[in-house]
Each structure stands twice: as C-alpha cells, then as structure tokens.
C-alpha cells in the first residue's frame, strides 16, 4: 500500500519536473532570442567604431566630399541634414500639434473625424519611399520646388506627421478631465483652455514625440533619394546676405543639398574600401545623432514629468 502511494508520488513528481523543465528551456530560448538582437546591435556598433573612428578627425567634419577618400568629409552632409531638419520641424511641429489638438479636443464624433483618424493610421503604415514618389510628383514637378532643401524638408515633415500627431494626442489624453472643467468653470474659452493649460501640461509628451519623429526623419534615406537629391555636392547652401550677388533671406531653401544618409549611401556603394571607412565614420556620427536624440527624448520626458503632479 505504502509502496504504491510513494511510487505514485514519484510518478507525479517526475511529470511536474518534466513540465517545469519546459519553463527552464523556454527561459533559455527567450534569453538567446534577445541575445540575437543585442549581439547584432553590438556587432553593428563595434564594426562602425573599428572602421570609422580612425577617420573621425576634425577635418572629417569640415571637409567637402572629395574623389580622394582620405580627404573627403561630411561638411555638406551635416549642414544639409541640419537645414532639412529645420524645415521639417518648422512644418511638422505646428501642423502636427494643431491637428492633434483638433482631433482630441474639438472634433465631434462623426464620419469626417473617422476619415481623418483612418487616414492617420494608414499613413503611419505607408512605406517611406512612397512619400518620396509623392514628393517627386508633387513638390518637385507640380509645385516646381525642385530638388531643394524645401522639398526634402516638406517630404520628411509629411512622413513624421503621424508620429507627432499620435504622441501629442496621447499626451493630451493623459491630462485629467478636471483640469479642463476647472478652466471652463472660470470662464475660459476652449482655446484658452487649450493654450493656457493643455499644451503646457502635455509638453513633455509632445516634445518626446517631436524628437522621436525628427530622429526618424534624420535617418530617412529613401524619400530623399527619390526626389533626386544629388550625391556629390561640393558647396554649401548660400548664407543669407553673402555671396555675389548677395543671397536673399530664403535662398538656402531652394539650394541643392545632400544629407548624412545619402552621403553614407554614396560611400557604401563605391567599390573602393577606403570609402567604406568614410561610410563607417559617417554612420557612426549619424547613429550618434539619432540615438542621442532618442536619449534626449527619454531624459526630457523624465525631467519634465517630475514637475507635474496631478
């Protein structure tokens, strides 16, 4: 009798152990799967660092591109990236925030609002190169803006608009309803509620969205190639008031340009390995920019959120 019970117990224990073993095995598999991701990141950074860091001298940042790999630099690329981002931010930030405010605070629940919402969700899933085709057909040829900083900035602004709108809406939604009610009770108009209360309180979230959107835009290559941006540019966009004849205030908007990702693409697609080193160095700078922006977003969110207590 006793022996039968103990053998039964032993059997059960064996079953339980077998089942628990699967827990352990899956835990290991899960860790391995994450390791694949982490190791890829590590390999990517190491590869760029080993290849690229020797090229990262001061000259690399202040030299124009060149046919000789050793003398080539990223001056036009980083200046171009900076100016394009400026245009993108000037367009995407106000339009995105305004659109989000409308959808979150003003919009009535009707078919038109539904259409806008579906559109935004859909646009977030459109491949970036399709935005490039839009820009090529519309900005470059229909509006005649040419292959300019303005075209590129507008294209990237449209590209990141869904990101800015979605994060701004989330930020506005997280503000408690009492804030709005209190402001209305004091006689504030809807716009006063929005501009005096909701936007300032939602600022951490909004800023995070803007920065994440810009960090996506700065690494975007395909739409800018599609509008036909040249890859060899050995001059800077005109500074207002300089040159002969003096450049106007907004001439730089219509200047040809190159940006960091395009410079990297250009160098990567050359057969000469010396250019691959340049590509690695420029990639290193670009990754530093995007990840730096992401880190800034996280830090900002953390810093500004500490000051707000509901």
């Amino acid at each position, binding site marked *: 009798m006793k022996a039968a019970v103990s053998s039964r117990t032993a059997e059960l224990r064996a079953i339980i152990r077998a*089942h628990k073993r*699967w*827990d352990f095995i*899956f835990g290991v*598999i*899960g*860790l391995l*799967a*994450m390791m*694949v*991701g982490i190791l*890829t*990141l590590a*390999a*990517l950074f190491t*590869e760029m660092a080993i290849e690229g860091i020797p090229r990262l001298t001061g000259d690399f940042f202040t030299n124009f591109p060149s046919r000789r790999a050793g003398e080539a630099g990223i001056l036009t690329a980083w200046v171009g990236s900076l100016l394009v981002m400026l245009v993108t931010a000037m367009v995407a930030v*106000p339009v995105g925030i*305004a*659109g*989000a405010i*409308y*959808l979150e605070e003003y919009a009535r629940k009707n078919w038109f609002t539904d259409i*806008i919402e579906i*559109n*935004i969700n*859909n*646009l977030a*899933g*459109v*491949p970036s190169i399709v935005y490039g*085709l*839009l820009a*090529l*057909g*519309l900005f470059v040829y229909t509006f005649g803006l040419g292959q300019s900083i303005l075209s590129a900035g507008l294209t990237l602004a*449209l590209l990141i*608009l*869904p990101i800015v*709108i979605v994060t701004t809406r989330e930020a506005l939604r997280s503000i408690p309803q009492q804030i709005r009610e209190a402001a209305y009770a004091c006689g504030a*108009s809807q*716009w006063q509620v929005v501009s005096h209360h909701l936007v300032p309180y939602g600022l951490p979230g909004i800023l995070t969205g803007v920065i994440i959107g810009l*960090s996506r835009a*700065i*690494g975007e*290559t*395909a739409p800018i*190639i*599609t*509008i036909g941006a040249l*890859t060899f540019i050995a001059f800077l966009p005109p500074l207002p008031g300089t040159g002969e004849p003096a450049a106007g205030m907004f001439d730089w908007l219509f200047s040809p340009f190159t940006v960091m*990702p395009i410079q*990297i*693409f250009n160098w*990567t697609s050359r057969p000469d390995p010396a250019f*691959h080193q340049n590509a690695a160095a420029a*990639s290193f700078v*670009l*990754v530093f920019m995007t*990840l730096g922006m*992401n880190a800034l977003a996280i830090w900002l969110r953390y810093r500004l959120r500490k000051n707000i207590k509901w």
Partner: protein
Amino acid sequence: MSMSTTTTEVAVQPPASSAALKLAEFARLKARRRRRERAIEMALLLAACVSVFTTAGIVYILVKESVMFFSTVPLWDFLTDTQWTPLFSDAHFGIIVLLSGTVSSSLVALSIAIPLGTIIAIYLSEFAGHKTREVMKPTLELLSGVPTIIYGYFALLFVTPLIQKIYPELPGFNILSAGIVMGIMIIPYVSSLSEDAMRAVPMSLREGSYAMGATRFQTATRVVVPAALSGIAAAYILGISRAVGETMILAVAAGMQPNLTLNPMEPAATITAYIVQVALGDLPHGSIGYQTIFAAGLMLMLLTLLFNLLGYWLRRRYREVY
C-alpha cells in the same frame, strides 16, 4: 442670443444707463470672442486635414502617372511578363520579376523576425521580471531606431562576408544577408506589439490557469497566446508591411539587378530597390522610365494597403472582449 435682445431693448430707452452700455460692450466682446474661437477651430481643422490631403496627394500622383504608364504598357503584360527591362530598347515590364525579389527578401526577414519576435514577446511578458523588461524593451527598440542605410552598410560589409566564410559561393550582393538584417530590424515591431497584446490579457485568466496547476510555459502557450492572438496577428501584419516597404537595406545589399528568382542566395532587385535605382539615374520627367517607378510605387502601395486592411480586419474579427 438673449443677451443681445436685452441690450437692444435697453438701448432704445433715451437715458442710456452705464449698465446698459456695459452690457452692449460685453455682447460685442462675446461675439468677437466667438468669432475668434471659430477661426481657431477652422485653423486646427485645416491642420488635421493635412493627413487627408497627403493621402489624396499620394493616390493622385500614383494613379495619374500609372494611368499614363498603362496607356503605353498593357496591364496584362505588366502582370504576366517574366522580364523587367524598362530601360532597354527591347523594353519589357513584368512586375513579377521585382515582386519575386520583394517576396523572397520578405520571406527571409519574416522567418527571422516572427519566431524571434514572438519568443521575445512571450519571454518579456510572461517570464521576465519587472527589471529585465524595463531594461530590455527599450534596448530592443533601439534596433528599429537605427537608420536603415546603416543596416544596409552592415549587411553588405559585415554580414555578407561573414556568411561567405561558411558558404563561399555566396555572391557579394544577395537577398539572404539583406533579409537577415531586415528581419533583425523588424524584431522590435513584432515583439513590442505582441507583448502589449499579451499584457492586455487579464490577470484572472493566468490565475485560473495557474490554479489548475499549469506551469508558466503551459499558461503562456495555451492561455495567454490564444487570448492575445488578434493583437499578435496584427503585429505580424505590421512586420510584413515593414518588410515589403523596406528600401535601403535591399538597395545597398541585395543588388539592383532584376532577377526572377525566389532563391535568396542570388542578387535580386525589389520594387523599392528599383525605384531607388531609377531615382539615382537621370531620367527625364514624363518618359516611360519615369512613369515605371510610379506604377511600381502603386503596386507597393496596394500591397501595403492590403496588409493594413488585413490587420484591421483580423483585429476586429478575432478580438477577445473581456
């Protein structure tokens, strides 16, 4: 409304009191404020409509150029021809050639991203502690934050030489390494969304499962995953539409040679890589070569739209309501 009538009634009485004047003043201010509010609302609405204009613009441009393209090239040839040589004198426009590149690269990418992404999602949601999750999730999301051109560099100059050490016949440009790198890039899209779906499964289901004596693994695979299936499917669909639309990794590492094959060991151009290739050259506006990229773009747009709709439908159809 009532206020304005009172003010006019008061105003006709000869000795206009200062109270009446004030009321009139208030009414005017109020009307002005209402006008301003209306104007602001209109401006905000306009901003919200930019997304609609963008979609309309994309459809307009793609359809307009494609219509011109299809007036030269019959749709039937476009869909059935097995050669893609739009820039040769003997021009052929068989989109199936580019589609084969897109399909094979996406298959390679998804065969990496879907298993790994799902395992990571289950691990983070059901097995990992709070600390691990808080650290690992943002770290993995870095994978999708790295610019794709850098992945292209990585695939061409790191992964391909690495695979060539094991398998020396692999050509310098190939679908395989581009697909692998693309798959790793897509992992966070799959894992983040799937994990969110799994975490949204109510605790009571897990508790019920544990109370029946199930282990973690059994709970995860037989209770949580089936309950979160619609969200997981949506994550897969997003992964697929990312893979189909990915451009730079393929343009850099898979070569731009149109090649009707599903063999990932060969170089092949995808729809996206073809658009890049044409954009790099100097095709005159309005030529047939210029129009092909819009026809290719329309194809791409329809593909991703199809997947988006499928994802939307899946979410609605299989959503578990708690």
